[in-house]
């Protein structure tokens, strides 16, 4: 379900106007994750599970403090632990909270072929609408951060909602609320950017991290989740954070210059449908009923 009081600015595979677009000025929200004060306590993981009522899953010890190798359809918030040796031989234990980055130009939304399955609110939150999801998995291809996860039982895709339901009620996301060290912050993008830059400067000036900086990759138009990193030139060290993420070319081409091919195919499909109608006539009521309920899960 979309959040009725949050305004929408982008809808997947939607032609035509967006209801209510531009009616109100809204701030872009942003989550700031300061990896330099994260202690990897996993309170955010638990808060995410609890708030979103996600079912428990099996985990297996895997030579790490990390709960599981990657986020799952029912585990949207995962701290990635990485032992990292610096050039001077000193060790760092990097901890990065991984979740949907809520890109300004979301690859998932661009790739999605189902009208309304992925929407972006004017506050920047990218939200999956599972009732419109057709389970094609294109969003998974479209995401440069490997976030959307497919549920084999429901045949739909899930991810962090930035607690759109809480934000809708003027609350911070559950992960932010639970963070004991205050390494997580939530506010407008402008404010978070400023806070992040200040912290990065402090790290450069007082803590000897000459390359400290803010991760807010332009390749996806900036993100609704930004990181302060000890070394912004090496985000890969933080559990595979891409250095220069961008929406895959295939998706860009498909939804951009090559979109007409799809349109042609769609028109072709419609013609085919019309021909089919001419030849076989309309469906009976029973057939219609069966078709309608086939795809639904109890």
């Amino acid at each position, binding site marked *: 379900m979309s959040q009725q009081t949050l305004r929408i600015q982008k809808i997947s595979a939607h032609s035509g106007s967006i209801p209510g677009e531009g009616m109100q000025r809204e701030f872009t929200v942003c989550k700031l994750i300061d990896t330099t004060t994260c*202690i990897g*306590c996993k309170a955010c993981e638990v808060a995410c599970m609890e708030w979103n009522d996600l079912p428990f899953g099996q985990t297996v010890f895997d030579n790490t403090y990390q709960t599981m190798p990657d986020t799952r359809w029912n585990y949207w918030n995962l701290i990635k632990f990485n032992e990292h040796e610096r050039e001077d031989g000193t060790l760092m*234990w990097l901890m990065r909270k991984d979740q949907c980055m809520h890109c300004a130009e979301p690859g998932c939304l661009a790739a999605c072929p189902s009208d309304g399955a992925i929407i972006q609110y004017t506050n920047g939150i990218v939200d999956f609408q599972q009732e419109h999801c057709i389970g094609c998995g294109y969003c998974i291809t479209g995401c440069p951060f490997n976030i959307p996860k497919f549920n084999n039982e429901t045949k739909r895709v899930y991810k962090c909602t930035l607690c759109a339901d809480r934000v809708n009620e003027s609350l911070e996301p559950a992960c932010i609320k639970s963070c004991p060290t205050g390494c997580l912050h939530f506010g407008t993008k402008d404010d978070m950017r400023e806070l992040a830059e200040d912290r990065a400067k402090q790290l450069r000036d007082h803590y000897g991290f000459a390359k400290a900086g803010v991760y807010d990759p332009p390749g996806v138009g900036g993100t609704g989740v930004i990181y302060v990193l000890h070394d912004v030139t090496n985000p890969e060290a933080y559990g595979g954070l891409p250095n220069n993420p961008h929406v895959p070319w295939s998706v860009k081409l498909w939804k951009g210059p090559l979109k007409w091919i799809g349109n042609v195919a769609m028109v072709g499909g419609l013609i085919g449908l019309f021909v089919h109608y001419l030849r076989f006539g309309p469906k009976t009521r029973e057939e219609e009923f069966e078709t309608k309920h086939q795809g639904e899960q109890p």
Partner: protein
Amino acid sequence: MTNGWVDMKNTDMMLIMGGNPAENHPCGFKWAIEAKRTRNAKMIVVDPRFTRTAAVADLHCQIRAGSDIAFLGGVIHYAIENNRIAKDYLINFTNAAFIVKPGFQLPGDTDGVFSGFDAKTQTYDKATWNYQGSGTGAGKDAVTNYALGAAAHPPSSGAPPVPPLPAKVDFDLSLQNPNCVFQLLKKHYSRYTPEMVERITGIPKEQFLKAADLYTSIRKDGDMKKASTIIYAVGWTQHSFGTQIIRTAAILQLLLGNVGRAGGGVNALRGHSNIQGATDMAGLFDNLPGYVKVPTPADTSFDSWMKRITPTPSKPAPWDSFNYYSNTPKFAASYLKALYGDAATKQNGWAFDYLPKVDRNYSWVQMWDDMYNGTVKGMLAFGMNGVAIGPNSKKNIDALKKADWLVVGEIYPDETSEFWRSPGITTDEMKNIQTTVYRLPCAGFAEKDGSFTNSARWLLWKNTALPTPGEARLDQAIVAQIFLKVRELYKKDGGKFPDAILNLTWNYSNPSSPPLAEVLKEVNGKALADLEDPATKQQIKAGQQLPGFAWLKDDGTTSCGNWIYSGSFTEAGNQTARRDPSDPSGLGVHPGWGWSWPANRRVLYNRASCDVDGKPWDPTRKQVWWNEGQQRWLGNDVPDFKVDSKPKDHMGPFIMNPEGVGRIFAPLAAFADGPFPEHYEPIESPIDNPLHPQQTNNPVVKRFKTPDDKYGTPKDGYTIVCTTYRLTEMYHYWTKNNPMNVQLVPQPFVEIPAELANDLGITGGEKIKVSSIRGDYIARAMVTKRIKPMMIDGKKVYQIGFPIHQGYRGIVEDEGKDARTLANLLTPTVFDPNAYTPEFKGFLVKVERA
């Protein structure tokens, strides 16, 4: 803590050692992070592993478990050598200038022991551990000193009599006298050179010097504005010399002038609620509530008991000493009035005879030994899992096999109540176990009200969140009902000494389940007669709650269950339930949030935050100050001092010591193992003590002698140093029953250095067996770069460690998928001679594939 959680935000420098607060105290740790964010504070972490705390530290030193005194002693040596000390503070607020008796000898001058050691009894005659001076002061009547610290079996008959402290102490403010405390300190730690620190701790010299330089940098050029804090937890206490590690930290903090100051202090992080409260309420056998020393068989009357435990001032003649413990008789008499009400009279010494007299050690490890040896027949186990806690879980299991009965109050089936089917016990063996086990369902923490006392000494009231499920009962209801039954039996059948039971006050509105608010009121204390304060003319009517411990009397007109908690539940109501977050000073005092002992004071010894004239060392962090106009001490915090004592009278800020000053040298019976801390090796160590190979271990520590008490050596193949710890994802042995926690940490694991894994051909995730001479622990290998091999005294030594949270009952355990061993099957039965804490850290093991 001398200070508090919130106060950490005021610090400029943190030394975190023997604790992993990011892991175990993540919520309180926010204030350490706050100091970094707002003050550019630096954080040094010294730990056997690169921990979650180390991940946000500015410097991490990997130390060998059990070598902390060597490290801290090295920092003391560095601070003195580089003149990074707080000279004025040291001279005026500590006993640095006091002259010590000429017969006193340091371990560097002998064979590694202090003067007065008797090798046969493994005890010290402490006559030389005293100040030079004249007049008789504290402890003027020599009484038999029961060696409560000794692991006595059979009971010890008592140690040599305690000599007195002199009333007038000789001193030298120039600190030049070779026998003054400062010179002795300097001499003692001159042996702790960076090279020696490296040999013992395994921390490379350059890295140690970096840490020492950084930590002492706050006193560069004698500047007194900055403050640094030392933060520790059970990584310090759980050694056979744990108390002395903390002593070393206290000495360092006194040397740097950090005690009593915002952002300073020596700060113990208590493991879980309500440990601080348990300690305050006489969790240890040698205390009564409020740390009043227990009577021993040598105390024949209330007066003789008071004479022994009430100190008299011992100080340089021109100085003043408040000697607050001179009020001990008021605390003790009021306590007895709270226990026995009208049955406690002046004639019967406030029912002194009803109090048990403690003749020897009854501490945790000793108690299990006594059960093993058949003198303890039964056990009530509430709020703890004794078998899993250990140490030496097998010994505890074997002890329970010999007990007649065991009552366990728990919310889950636990290892203790099911000791009789612990792994390895065969069905035939089970048939021979005759112990009757009662398992009572108790209330969980959310199902009870009451107060928690946190590490910062803050009492915080909590409300009941949920009703108790099913047949579960509140702990206090179970205890009360047992008491009422026992009392009934005494009433009916009499007994050897029924008075102490029959006369106990039990004035609760619901005797079979005393409401905890009523208990707190009783603990706070009330007036038993109309009282008037002669100075302020303030009056209290009989029956009214006392405003604080200053009102306590030794004439039977007040009752109080615990003097340090007096003020927590006054006529104004339950002070621990207050929730006013305001903080006018911005120093994190929050005077209206809960209530902290003593007297709602947030930083102890805060008089020391000012110079001799009563002016704050740092005007930007004003805690208390002398107001010349009002002739009083005022403050943002409650002054920890006699409020009208003029600075020129030179009263010492450490009012709980008879000297009035901080003890760099701890005289006489203060500690069982020495007036200065000396590095001794853990009972199981990979090396001989490099300081004195002929005296490797703490000389007063005794070993236990049952067949279950075995101690390993490198010669037996146990060459790897092992330590145990906890995880943020888990809570003790509880959360293995919660699917959420189990999802976060599904299986037990052992952290081993990549190099060791390589040597043994072990890959990450593989099942391995860690064995000490006492038992095996089977878990998955976590191969990590976060523990490195070390060079200890020229030898390559590996160090490993593992969390303690799993056992043989729990979600994963019951599925039978993984090993069902307890971490504490490996740990040795040995304890610290002062606090009786077992040595869970730093024992020897070997590792192989399982």
